[in-house]
Each structure stands twice: as structure tokens, then as C-alpha cells.
């Protein structure tokens, strides 16, 4: 049974300098055709499973006009959903208003994930995002006023020229907003982004690490717990949808450039909007081998601070984790810890987790 579904809305009104996700400039000529194609894709793949989570990501889903959003929700009505559905929509500060929020509410959206990225004008400019601190605070206040409780914001740190003090200011503003969830990412300068083309350098590794520790400390002191490398939540506010990924469970992925995992096959949709509109949805399909599944389970599972539940892993993949030579070595070196039926990365080494994963790969 598939329990999770991701829907990609690729449209954006502005392209962020660090973004290498699949996105196109918003153009109302295309949105309706896109939604038509999306509906066909969903009808084509969806098997009637009862979903626990729906996640509309982007791009900027909230940049769609109200009529377009209504149509999107009409499409989504075809899904069967469970009673405790987690239904997330991503958005940005500029495109949220009361009318849209009301529409979300009426369509069972119960979690909002807002790309704030930074509160600092200088850093927002480098990231090519244009909202003021006041606009951010106003928008989030409105969201809370409208009755949304499960709210996440994204923040980015390790931005070129960022200081520890500026990072602390960002965190303090987040704390003031009193939201239950924070995704906080160290800036990755990916190829095919403006930052990369502008030859922007990463900040010093030591400073990056110091920032990571600062975040960890401040958030932990304020009642948030880290449950994944870059994710912090108040109790019971972990993202169920994202945990599906990290638990290496299957999910539907619909829309331009989206990926999904169905029947042991990981597929990725085309990033070409013209192909997508023609109904050529899938670009790549990989039937995973057993080894790849196991490795994915480790790569994803060890992102969770709680780690991998040994019993589940053994049931699912038929592998006795505690007898694996490399795992035993890593436990001996105290890089992995085995405790209470779980295996997880020693918190001292979380920021070096690739060094561990590389050893776990065949």
C-alpha cells in the first residue's frame, strides 16, 4: 500500500540563485495545460491507495492564482485519504494571502511549509529573494491567525559572508514566531545555479560546522529536537511525509521533474515542460537491485537522528544488521551506535555522515 504522494508545481515568479530544483517562470498560459496534464498523469498512475500524506511542493505552489489553485484541489479530490491525513503545501511569503489560506483550509491542507530562507536583507539579496522581515512576520502571523498550527519554515545558513551573529539573529526571529518545525539547510552551491555560475565559494568549513553546532544548541535549548540532519521539530510535529522518504518507503510522485518510488522502481519525470504537456511524463526508470535498496535504506535511514529500527530493517531486507562486517567495525569505532533496537550515527559524526555512508556502500 502506498501511503504518500508528492505533487510538484514547478512555477515560480522569481528564480532563487541557489535553486537547482525543477522550476519554470510562472506563465498563466501554461498553468491550465499543466494542470490538465497533471490530472492525466495522476489518473494514469494512482491505484486508489488510501494516502496518509500529500505534499504539494515546488517551485512555488502558492504563486498559482486562486482559480488555478481551486482546480488543483479539484484534481486532488480523486485521492482516497486517511482520517489523520497530513496535507502540506509549500509557499513563499510574497504569494500568500488570506483568500488562498482560506482555500487551503477548506481543502484540508493542514501543514504549511514556507520558504523564508533568511531574515537578513543582505543574504536574501544574494539568494535572490525579496521579502522584508516585516512581510515575513506579517505573513506567518496571518497563517497562525487563520488557524494553521503545523507550520514549517525553511532557513538557509552558511551563506557567503554570513556571521555567527547573523545566524543567531535569524534563529531568534524564528523562535519569536513560535513555530513547531524548522528545516535549516547549509547552503549547497549546486551546478546549474546562479551562485555556481557566479563562482560563489562555500564558506569556510570550520565556520560552517560552528554554525551547525550553534543551531543545534539554540534549538535544543528551546524545546526543539533534531530528528533529521537538517530538521527540527517540537514533539509530534515531525513531517510524516518526509519521514516516508527517510524510511525508504514507496510513494507517488506526480508533476514536472518529480520522482517517485513504486513497485521497487525509482522513476524520475521529465524536466521538459513541453514533453510533460505532451504526456511523456517519465524520463528515467530504475529497477532497483536488492543491494541498491539496502544502500538506499542506509543512506536515507541514517539521516534520522533516531536511526534505523533494526527489526524493521531485517524484516524488510532480510539482512542481520548486527552481523554486517562494516557495521560492526563502525560500531566499534563508535561512529555508529546500537541502542534500544535502533542503529544510528553518533551525534559527533552526523556532520561527517558521508564518511560513514561511503563505507557502507558496496
Amino acid at each position: 500500500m502506498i501511503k504518500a504522494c508528492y505533487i510538484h508545481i514547478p512555477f515560480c515568479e522569481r528564480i532563487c540563485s541557489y535553486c537547482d530544483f525543477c522550476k519554470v517562470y510562472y506563465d498563466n498560459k501554461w498553468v491550465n495545460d499543466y494542470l490538465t496534464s497533471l490530472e492525466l498523469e495522476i489518473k494514469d498512475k494512482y491505484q486508489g491507495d488510501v494516502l496518509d500524506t500529500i505534499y504539494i511542493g515546488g517551485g512555488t505552489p502558492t504563486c498559482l492564482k486562486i482559480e488555478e489553485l481551486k482546480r488543483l484541489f479539484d484534481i486532488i479530490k480523486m485521492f482516497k485519504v486517511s482520517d489523520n491525513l497530513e496535507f502540506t503545501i509549500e509557499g513563499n511569503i510574497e504569494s500568500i494571502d488570506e483568500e488562498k489560506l482560506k482555500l487551503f483550509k477548506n481543502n484540508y491542507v493542514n501543514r504549511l511549509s514556507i520558504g523564508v530562507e533568511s531574515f537578513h536583507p543582505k543574504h536574501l539579496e544574494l539568494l535572490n529573494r525579496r521579502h522584508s522581515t516585516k512581510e515575513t512576520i506579517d505573513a506567518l502571523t496571518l497563517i497562525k491567525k487563520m488557524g494553521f498550527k503545523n507550520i514549517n519554515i525553511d532557513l538557509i545558513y552558511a551563506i557567503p559572508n554570513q556571521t555567527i551573529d547573523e545566524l543567531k539573529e535569524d534563529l531568534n526571529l524564528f523562535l519569536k514566531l513560535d513555530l513547531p518545525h524548522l528545516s535549516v539547510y547549509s547552503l549547497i552551491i549546486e551546478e546549474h545555479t546562479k551562485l555556481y555560475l557566479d563562482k560563489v565559494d562555500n564558506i569556510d568549513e570550520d565556520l560552517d560546522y560552528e554554525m551547525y553546532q550553534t543551531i543545534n544548541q539554540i534549538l535544543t535549548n528551546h524545546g526543539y529536537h533534531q530528528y533529521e540532519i537538517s530538521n527540527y521539530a517540537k514533539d509530534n510535529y515531525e513531517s510524516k511525509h518526509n519521514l516516508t522518504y527517510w524510511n525508504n518507503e514507496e510513494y507517488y510522485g506526480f508533476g514536472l521533474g518529480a520522482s517517485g518510488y513504486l513497485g521497487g522502481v525509482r522513476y524520475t519525470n521529465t524536466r521538459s515542460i513541453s514533453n510533460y504537456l505532451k504526456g511523456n511524463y517519465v524520463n528515467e526508470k530504475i529497477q532497483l537491485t536488492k543491494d541498491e535498496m539496502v544502500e538506499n535504506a542506509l543512506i536515507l535511514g541514517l539521516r534520522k537522528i533516531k536511526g534505523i529500527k533494526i527489526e524493521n530493517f531485517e524484516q524488510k531486507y532480510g539482512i542481520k544488521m548486527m552481523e554486517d562486517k562494516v557495521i560492526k567495525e563502525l560500531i566499534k569505532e563508535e561512529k555508529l551506535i546500537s541502542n534500544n533496537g535502533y542503529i544510528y550515527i553518533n551525534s559527533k559524526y552526523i556532520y561527517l555522515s558521508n564518511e560513514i555512508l561511503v563505507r557502507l556502500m558496496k
Partner: protein
Amino acid sequence: MKQENIRNFSIIAHIDHGKSTLADRILDATSAVTEREQKKQLLDNMDLERERGITIKLNAVQLKYHYQNEDYTLHLIDTPGHVDFSYEVSRSLAACEGALLIVDAAQGIQAQTLANLYLAMENDLTIIPVINKIDLPNADIERVKKELKDTLGFNEDEIILTSAKSGIGITELIEAIIEKIPAPKGNKDDNLQALIFDSYYDAYRGVVALIRVVNGKIKVGDQMKMMSNGLTYEVVELGVHNPYPAKKDMLVAGEVGTVCGSIKNISDIKVGDTITIEDSPASNLLPGYKPMKSMVFCGLYPLDSSKYPELREALEKLKLNDASLEFAPETSKALGFGFRCGFLGLLHMEIIQERIEREFNIDLIATSPSVIYEITLTDGSVINIDSPVKMPDKVKIVDIKEPYIRTNIFVTSEYIGPIMELCQNKRGIYHSIEYLDNTRVSIHYEIPLSEIVYDFFEKLKSYTKGYASFDYDFIGYKSSNLVKMDILLNGEIIDALSIIVHKDFAYNRGRIIVENLRKLIPRQQFEVPIQASIGNKVIARADIKAVRKNVLAKCYGGDVSRKRKLLEKQKEGKKRMKMIGSVEIPQEAFLSVLSMDEED
């Protein structure tokens, strides 16, 4: 074939002056090769040769040409162009009566033009000067003619103008070969003297020697004898290349061809040696034989230690075709089992390394090149060492001598200043400057060979925007104030990184090496100090920082395939590192000691 209708000749030139293309055109003109077979540069057999545009191993081709109602047989003996192989060049020239001296119409005379010309003159060859590439837009035929006349003393009417690329002047050239180069003089009734000017290994026939029969004749079934070492073999097969192998029953005085005798070991067949017949031996060797001597040494280690047997096999296979390659097992504390290898020169070293990596697929770590040092000890004895590791304790040393070379750097006069500066930085001693004409000079410095094995070539190129050409002669050993400098990682001496360096240059060199290593070695699990020391005295230090971050900051469902690729790349990267103690060192770090510059 009448002996008076045979012409044996070579083509000599500076690199890239069009030697191989010209050889191809001559082959075309004598219809030796059909068009379909005309790969560019037919004589260069190895891929590597073709790629680098240089000739490494020799070849000899038999060509037929009809001229003025007579049939002529031409033997074209190809020579390597590079200074490292000058002994081989000299032996192949000794197999000829004449040589074509090719000069590029745009570049004029260069260092190797002269070096090769001198070798040809030593062998008393008739030289035909050829200006090639005359159809280049920047050709300056008049200037090059003047150089040939003023500097080398040729007459204007001797000079032949060609464009090998467009086929201009080829017929005139072939006719000049027939008209001007004398027929071989030997007596076919004398006892056999055949000069070995090259050899190679053939999987089916064993060692194949390329020979020029100087006197007498050699037949299949003869019992032949190598005059330098007395080894005898039955002649199993004789042949020529035209350019494809064709069998012969007999080769007689004046002819050039191949001989096989089920010979297994290429080192038994020495270039420059004389073959005679066991029963009726010639009284003496042909002149000029000398054993080849390695000038440059380095340690070669497999990156993956388990590939040691494969590396041995690769070296053995290469040695089959290359008698000048020397190797002996060597153990390094840092790198494990490997081989100390000796080469004729730097290019030779590079070529061997590249062939091992490419043809045998073994990733190598090469230690920094060394020369042979002559060390006088307190007890009066003299030892030779080819590796810094073998350096005796300082208190036992009275004197260290190192090999010196004399440079022959060809360049336009505007670069005299920078070149003098470069040579001085390389501990060079000024010898002389010769003016070829108003603008072109040949600069002579005496420089320790060990300084040339570092980055001299690259420096020379960058100092002169690539215009300088360079050649050198070995001139002997001189005393120097040398010390051994060790590099320590995490407090441990990494023997493979030790170098021998002049005392006055040690401090600066140590500082640069340590700094380069700091940049080349990635962050480690913990902080690692890098030190340079002489004896127990640390003269430079830098620290490699501990790795703080190696994490996929963001990874959601669809990303996992992409992130896997990233992790796989990291894993691959780790495989290309050498684990020494607990420090991971990338391959290129071992050569960083070569560079006198700070890396960016």
C-alpha cells in the same frame, strides 16, 4: 639488387618540424602504401607516439623507386627526435649514408635540429637540407635559407623546399636522395658485420633486431654471434618492411632489414652491437658501440598495493621492447612494494609511466625523480646512489658529486634575460651565448641534471611563451653542497617524499613543498602536521586541518539516486588515495615535491 642502387637514409628534425608527415609522403610517392592504409604518420606504431606526435621507437622501411631507367631500393630509417634517445638516434644514423635535415619554414633551426645534425655529421653522413611547411602562412623561407647557409654552411642550391602536408617537392626530394646520397660501400664478400640499430619484441618471433649489413651477408640458417657478449643464435628469419613485413632468405652488404633468432631476452640484443657469423667472424666490432645508461630514476608503486605483481609484469613487458628501461624491486615504508626504475631521460620516464597507466591500467604513484649521486665516504670508498633513501648518514660523507649537463637553449634574443634568470635559479653556471644571427641565440649553461628533472621544461616554456627549444649534453660530475631533506606527516618520515637538495636552496624548497602538500592533501579525520626536516632540524611546517563537514545537507525521496552518485564519486575518490599510516594522500601529492612553485 645492385649495391650501387641502394640508398640508406634517415630523416632528422626538431620535434614537430614535420618529419613523420614527410616520411609518409615519401612512402606515398613510392606507392608503398595504398591510400586506405594511409593512417596519418604511418611509421609511428604506438598510439602514444601518434598522440604526442613524437617518434619513440625506430622503424626501417624498404621502398622502391624507378628513376632514369634504373630501379632503386631506398631504406628509410626513422629516428626518434628527442634528446633522451640520442644514442638510439646516433646508431640509426650509423646505419645510413645520408640524412634529410628537415627545418620548419616558420620556426627555423631549433635545438634538436642542431643536436641531430651534429650526430649525423659525427657519422659522416651526406646531409640534404630540406625546408618543410613552405605553404604555411607564416613561413619565412628566405630567413630559414639564410640560417641554413650562414649557420650551417649549406649552399643555396642544395636546399630543397617541401610541404609534406600538401605533397609539394616530394619528387625532387626523392630524386635528390638518389642523386646525392652515396650508395653503401661495404664488401659483400667480407666476413659479416651487421649493425643492430634497434630491436623490438614480437610475441611470436621473439626479439626482432633491425640491422644494417655493413659487410658480408647473412642467410637464414646461419649461426650468428653478438660481438659484444658472444651470444650465438641461429638465424630463423630475415625480412624487410615495405612497409609490411616480407620474408627474405638473405641480406647482403648495404641492405637494411630484420633478423630473428628465437631470442627471448631483449637485453641480449644491444643497440649498437655488431652481428657476425660464428664460424667466420669479423675481426672487430663496428665503431660506436656503448651500453646505454640510465640518467634519471624514480620509484614506481601501484596505488593499489595488491597490483604489485601486475606492475612487475607490466615492466617486464615494456622492457621486452625497450632495453633501456631498468627496474629493480624496492620497498618503501610509506608505499610498500614497488620498483626503482631507471630511464634515459625525463621524456622516457613520462612515457613509461603513461604506458603503464594506460596500457596496463595500473594507477601509479611515482616518487620524485632522482639522478645518480657519487658519494665519497670517510673510509675513502665511493658509492653511487640513485635514491634519496639510500643516502648514507651525514657524518660518513666526505663529498657528494652530482651529474651536470650543458644546455643548448635556442631562443630569440629578447628572452636572454628571463632564461639567464631561470638557469641561475636552477644553480646554473654561465658558459656562453652564441648568436646565430641578429636575433637568435643559443644559450649555454652548466646545470645540475637534478635541477632539470624538476620543472625546468615547464618553466622554460612559460618564460619564453613556448618559443624556446632545449637540448642538453651530459658533461660529467661536480661536487655540490647537497643534503637530504625529509618530509614528515604526523611526525613520521614519508620516505617516498625525501629529496636531495642543495643546502642553500633547502629552506625555500622545504617551505614550498610543505605548503603545496597542505593544499593537495584533503582535510583528514584529525589535524595532521606536515614538516620538512634536514637531519633532526625542522625547517618548515604546515598543518592539514581536520574534516568538519561531509554531509548531504538536504536529501528527500527523489534525491536519493543523485546523492548515491555523489557518494559513489566520493568512494571512487578515496580509492585514488594512498593510506599512509592514518593519513589519506592523493597520488599527485607525491609529485608535488617536484614543483618549485606554490600551487594555486
